């Protein structure tokens, strides 16, 4: 990979940074737009289209999907996009829906009472205000003032895909930046044997190794900048281990630690909390 290219709004994307796969159509991600030359003069290049950045960020290309986009700032507010996994909190329920909070500043998202795996009128989960959910954004609607809809089931198959969608019992929620959440999702979904881990994160692997003896842990990462952690298997150390994991994640997020420092931090935190590994 060549050195990352940082673009500012109005900068053209250089042609040699684009994926070279000419057969498939190029997919444009966030932060880029296609502009056409207003007055194509005969002297100009045959293709009179220009790719221009609209946000400041690192240009990221994906040769496999033939996609190109600009990585957004990691501290930005979460804006729901269909397909995102989020950790939501039930606020109240009405006849057909649970009204859930995804971010404190946005209006409540709707979750159908029957949008759970195998749910019928009789078997649907009875959730109360404050209960946590791991859900997928189904639709966001168009324009202002429209509601975000969530689901805990894949509408096509009727299964909770990927596993784990649905109510989250026990555990704790920690706030992280949206950029960190995206990295954690990438890191946890693809297991790699690289030395530096995926997306520069080794913390989950490290914690998993160290806490294996104590019973391991469960984690659900929401794109909305929330992580749910549970260590109910590790009996008397459950709370301590949960807090330790949360502390590791938030510290790494705040200080942008590199893999070596992440390993050191995990060891230090676990030692401070007196958790045997």
């Amino acid at each position, binding site marked *: 990979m060549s050195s990352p290219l940082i673009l*500012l709004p109005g900068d053209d994307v250089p042609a040699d940074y684009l994926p070279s796969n000419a057969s498939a159509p190029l997919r444009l991600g966030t932060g880029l737009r296609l502009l056409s030359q207003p007055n194509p003069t005969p002297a100009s290049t045959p293709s009179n289209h220009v790719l221009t950045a609209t946000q400041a960020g690192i240009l990221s290309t994906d040769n496999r999907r033939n996609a190109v986009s600009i990585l*957004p700032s990691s501290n930005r507010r979460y804006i729901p996009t269909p397909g995102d996994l989020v950790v939501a909190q039930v606020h109240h329920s009405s006849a057909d829906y649970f009204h859930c909070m995804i971010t404190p500043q946005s209006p409540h998202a709707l979750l159908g009472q029957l949008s759970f795996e195998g749910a019928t009128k009789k078997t649907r989960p009875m959730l109360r205000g404050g209960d946590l959910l791991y859900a997928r954004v189904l639709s966001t609607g168009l324009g202002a003032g429209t509601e975000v809809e969530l689901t805990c089931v894949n509408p096509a198959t009727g299964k909770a895909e990927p596993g784990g969608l649905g109510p989250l019992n026990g555990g704790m929620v920690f706030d992280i930046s949206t950029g960190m959440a995206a990295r954690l999702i990438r890191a946890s979904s693809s297991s790699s044997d690289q030395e530096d881990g995926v997306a520069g994160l080794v913390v989950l692997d490290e914690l998993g190794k160290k806490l294996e003896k104590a019973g391991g842990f469960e984690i659900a990462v929401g794109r909305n900048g929330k992580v749910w952690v549970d260590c109910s298997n590790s009996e008397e150390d459950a709370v301590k281990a949960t807090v330790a994991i949360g502390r590791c994640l938030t510290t790494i997020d705040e200080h942008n630690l590199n893999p070596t420092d992440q390993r050191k931090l995990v060891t230090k935190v676990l030692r401070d909390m007196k958790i045997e590994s």
Partner: protein
Amino acid sequence: MMGGPIASLHPLSRADGSASYKCPSTGSNVLGSVNAPVELPGRRDALKPEDATIEVFVKPGTAPSGVGERYVEGILRGALSRIVLGREKGYPRRGVVITLAILGGESIGRGGSYLPLLPALLHTSILALLSASVPLSMSLSATMLAVNPSGEIVRKPSITDARAAASLHVLAFTSKGHLLLSESEGRFNFDTWDKVYENALAVCHGTSTLSSDGDVAMTENMDTQPLEGFVRDTVEDHIRAEYAWKVDAA
């Protein structure tokens, strides 16, 4: 010689985007935040159906805001609405709210000139917009120049220079070199303005366009980078720090 401006990106954690900017020569210090896209309740009829509504609020540090703030808010809104791409996905019918708090510098009385603060306000807004990832068509840079009574152009004028000046000029250029904004007051003629234009373009975009009248300004231009580069470096440094894990890995 005083150093260049000082800026930081994203000093506020709750806002979608924020920036602080300090200009040493005029002493102006501005903190700005941007929230976008946000719902603007209660003003449905005033919202444009296919475009974002840009709102700018300027809060003076020590005094309640008055007519001067309404005026400068109008200027900023006019300049920024040409740069923000309000038709991008998720923005139409929503608002881009920019709040600028003046933390330091000369306070401006009723009817006083807002020109000395204008470059700082513009830079803070553009940096905050960039930090909020609001889609923009280009970025901008702005500068103030004073023409003293003997007809010389003073770069980076201090407040005292500005008071003594025969005319004051604020010019803003987009990153593609368009003249986006020009506000001048005092007595001057068009030829003076033309020279001011050349100088301002040199301050914002480097010396490339400085014409043959190589005056004193040439020498002092060497030690400071053009403002356009300053905006770019500030943003790039921030992104590098944020994506350190990715940049280092590469």
